C-alpha cells in the first residue's frame, strides 16, 4: 500500500498509464490525465449522469469511481463512439432529431442509450424514458431524446 498508485487502463482502444493519487476520481483522471474532456461533470454526486461512461462493458458514473479502481479495465467514453469522422447511428439519430441542445448531458446520454439499446434493441417510448431517467437534461424536455433513441433503434435493427 502506497499513497500514489500506477493506473493502466485502456480507453477507446488506447492504453493510458499514469500515477494517481488514490482520491483522484475516475472522471478527473479521464478528463485531465487522459485529456478526454468529452466526459462531463455536472454534479459530482452521481445524480445527473453527465459523466456516464462504459467500464468493462457496463455503464458507470465516472464521478463515483476512483481512478485507482480501474487499473486493467477497458473503458469507452463518448470519444470512442464515432469511427473516425463518422458518427455512429445513435449519434446520427440525435443529430437528426434535435436530441441535444447545449450538448453537456449528451455524452452521458449517449453512453446510457448505447447500453439501453444493447440490452433492448426494440424499446418502447416508455422503456426509453425509464432507461434514460438517470440522466438529467435541462435543455430538451427529453421528448426529442426519446425520439432520437427510438429512431436509432429502428435504424440499428434494419
Amino acid at each position, binding site marked *: 500500500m502506497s499513497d500514489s498508485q500506477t493506473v493502466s487502463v485502456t480507453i477507446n482502444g488506447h492504453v493510458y498509464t499514469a500515477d494517481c*493519487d488514490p*482520491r*483522484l476520481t475516475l472522471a478527473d483522471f479521464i*478528463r485531465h490525465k487522459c485529456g*478526454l*474532456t*468529452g*466526459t*462531463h*461533470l*455536472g*454534479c*459530482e*454526486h452521481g*445524480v*445527473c449522469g*453527465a459523466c456516464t461512461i462504459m467500464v468493462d462493458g457496463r455503464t458507470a458514473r465516472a464521478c463515483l469511481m476512483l481512478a485507482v479502481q480501474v487499473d486493467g479495465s477497458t473503458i469507452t*467514453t*463518448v*470519444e470512442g*463512439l*464515432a469511427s473516425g469522422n463518422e*458518427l455512429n447511428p445513435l*449519434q446520427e439519430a*440525435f*443529430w*437528426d432529431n*434535435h436530441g*441535444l*441542445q*447545449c*450538448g*453537456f*448531458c*449528451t*455524452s452521458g446520454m*449517449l453512453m446510457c442509450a448505447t447500453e439501453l439499446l444493447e440490452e433492448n434493441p426494440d424499446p418502447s*417510448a416508455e422503456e*426509453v*424514458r*425509464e432507461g*434514460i*431517467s*438517470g*440522466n*438529467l*437534461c*435541462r*435543455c*430538451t*424536455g*427529453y*421528448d*426529442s*431524446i*426519446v425520439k432520437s433513441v427510438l429512431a436509432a433503434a429502428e435504424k440499428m435493427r434494419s
Partner: protein
Amino acid sequence: MTIAEPVHNQRKYVGTSVRRTEDPRLLAGRGQYIDDLTVPKMIEGAILRSPLAHARITNIDVSRALELPGVFDVITGKDLAAVAGQQPVIWLPIPDQRLAKTHALAVDRVRWVGQAVAAVVAVDRYVAEDALELIEVDYEPLPVVADLEAALAPDAPKLYDDWPDNVSGSHSYKTGDADAAFASADLVVSGSFTHGRAMGCPLEPRGCIVSWDSFSDTLDLWLSTQAPNLARDLLAEVFEVPVSKIRVRTPNLGGGFGNKFDFYGEEIIAAVLSRRTGRPVKIVEDRADSFVATGHSRDQRLDFEMALNNDGTIVGLRGISYGVLGGALSTVGAGPCWASVLTCMGPYKIPNLDVTVKVVMTNRAPYGSYRGWGAPKGNIVHERLIEMAARELGMDRAEIRRKNFPAPEEFPYFSGAAFTFDSGRYADCLDLAMSKVEELGWRERQAKARAEGRSLGIGYSFHIEPSGYGPSRIMNLVGLQHSGFDEATVRMDSVGKVTVYSGQINMGQGTHTTYAQIAADNLGVPMEDVVVVTGDTDSCPYTGYGTGGSRGAPLGGASILRASQRLRGKILRVAAQLLEASPDDLEINDGQISVRGTSSKSVSTRDVGDAAYRRLLDKLPEEEMPTLEEVDVFDPPNMATSYGCTALLVEVDRETGMVSLLDCLQAHDCGTVLNPMLVDGQLAGGLAQALGGALLEELVYDDEAQLKTASFMDYLLPTAMDIPPFQFFHQETPAPDIPGGVKGVGEAGTIAGVSLVASAIDDALSDLGVTVTRFPVTPPRLLDQIREAQSRKEGSA
C-alpha cells in the same frame, strides 16, 4: 423600421428544419466547455462560503491555509475590497430603490448561507479544497430573516442597519381608475399566489479562467457567460480599467437559462487572485457551490384581485407582487420581480390597472435571472384569476379568455404598464389549441378515465412573451443601465465564403445554425459556405444586452439579415462589373450570380471575392471600396411579443396527492419560424423547466435560512419519466417591427407551464372545487388540499 428596398431573396433555409451545424462535434465529445479548457501556468481556485445566514465576521485566520503545500494565495473580503469595487447592478426599474450592494467577498458581514468569505488558489482543485478546511472564520451570529413574512414583520431584524426596514423599494403602475372599477364590478376574484424559489440550474456549472497580465496590463478571460460585452463593461467598472484592455471569450456553454446572464463575484475573485499570483486562475463552481452561488429566482408572493362584469368582461386588476430578494442584489436587481407586474395583465384587455411591485431583502441567496424572468409569475396572476372567474360565472374557460383578447386590428396594443404588444391573433391561437385537444381525443381519455374512477384533468394556459429586449431608449427609460441593440458583421472573404460575427452567445439554442440560415438566404449562398463566429469580444461586435430576454433570433437575427442584404447589394454590384450587366438585373442563388431569367452566363461568389480582395484591376468597380463586409446595428423600435396557448393532460392520485403529466401540446406564434425543429426544441425545453418548477423543484430554506435542498438528491430536476410528450402547432404572425418578422421564443415554455399545471389539477379535481395557488405543488400539499375539499364537501352535503 425595415429595409426599404424589396429584395428577391433565396428562401431555401429559413423556415425549414435544418440540422444543426453545432451538433457533430458536440456529439463526438469535442465540445469545449469552461472546465475543459486549460491555459499555460493555470492554477485553480475554490471559495470558502458562509455556513450562517446572517452574522458579523469578527476574524479570519488564513495562515494555516497559506502554509499548505501547493497553495499560492488566499484572500479575504478586505484584500478584495482594496482593489475592486462592489458588484454592479444594471436593472434599476424601481425609482429611488435602496441598493443593497456587496463586494465579491464579504467584508465584515454575511447575509446568506453560501456568501463568499475567502478564496484560495492552489495547484489544483483538490488542494484548493483542502486549504479551505484550514481557514478559520469567527462569526458573531445575527438574528435571521428567513422569509418574506419575517422580513416584513414590524419588529423584524434589519439586514441593512441604515435602512428603516427590509424593503428595498416599491413601484406602482396605474391605468384608468381601478378602485372605481372594483367598486362597480359584478364579480371580484382574488388570490394569494406563491412561487417557491427555483433556479435555472444549467447542467454545466458556471466558471471562468482569468489572466491578469501585469506586464501588458491586460485582463483576459474565458467566461461561461451569456453576456460577454456586459461582463467586459462591468469588469471595467469594478476594476476601473479601460474596456480595451479586457478580452472576454466564451467557450461552449452547457446551458445558461439566465443563470449565466448575470455577472458574478467569482469573475472578480479570480481576477484579483490572478493579479496577485501572476498566474491565470480558473474558478469553476461545483454543484454544491452552484446551489448557493448561482442566481436563485421565482421566489414571489402575488396578492391580486380581478374585477369582472357578469358577461365575463374584465374591468380591473389590482394587486401587489412581493419579490423575496436575498441578502444583496444580483446584477439584475429587482428586474425579474418588476417584470411580473409588467406582464400580470397577460393577453387580456384590462382598462383599469393598479399593480405594485415591492421587493424585500431576506437572508436568502441573491435573486437573479432565470429564463422567463418575471413573466411566469405574471402568467400565474392572470391565468389563475381568469379561471377562478370562469368558475364563479359558470363560463367556459376558453370563452372567457376569448372575450377579453384584443382583436388583431387593435394592435399595437398598450398593455397599461410599459409594454406595447406589437401584433397578435390571440383568438386564432386559442382555437388552434382547443381544436388539437379535440382532435387528439383528450376529452375521451378524460371521460373514460373518470368512468374508471381515475382523476384526469385538462389544463390551459394562454401566455404572452414580450421578447426581443429591447429598444435601448425604452430600456433606459424603465431603468436598465445598459442598451438593447444588437450589432453584426457579415463578411465575404477572398474565395467567396461567408463569416458572420455576432455578439450573441450560443448556449444550446442553436443560433449558429439559425444565423447561418438567415445569412445564406439573404446573401443567396449555400449554408455550408457560412461560418458563424461568436464568443470573443476582441473579434465579435457589441451586443447591447447579451443573450437574454429572448433576443437572439429577433435582434441578433435582424442585424445579420440587414447586414447580409447590404452585402448582397455589394456582391451584385461587383458581379455586375464582371458580367457587364446592371446590378438591378442580377440574382444570386446558391452562390451563383446571373442575369435574372437567363442562365447563360454567371459568375460565382468566388469570382466576386477574388475581384474584391486580390485581382481588382478591371473587376472591382472604381467607386467600390475593396473587401466585402457590412456592419449593421439594429435597435428595435418596439419589443416583439410572441404568445401561445398550451394544454396539458394530467392525472391526480387523490389518495397520495401525486400528479402525473400525460400529454402536452402548445399552439404558438413567434412570427416567422426560422427553423421549426429548433423552435419546438426551445418550447419543449422551457415547458419542461416550468413543469419541474410547478411540481418538483424548490429551494427550501428553514427558519434559520439554511438551504435544505443543496444537492440533486433534494433539488429535484425533472427526469424523462416526469415530463410528458409534447406536440407543437404554429401560426405565423410576423413581427411588424422586426426585419424578417421573427419574435423571440426562448422563454415561452417557462412562462406558460406553471399556471398550466394548476389549471389541469383544478380540472381533475373539479368536483371538489380545489384551486391551486402555491407552487411547487408537492404531493403532501396537494393531498392536504384534497382532504380539506373533501371534508368541506362532506360537511355541506
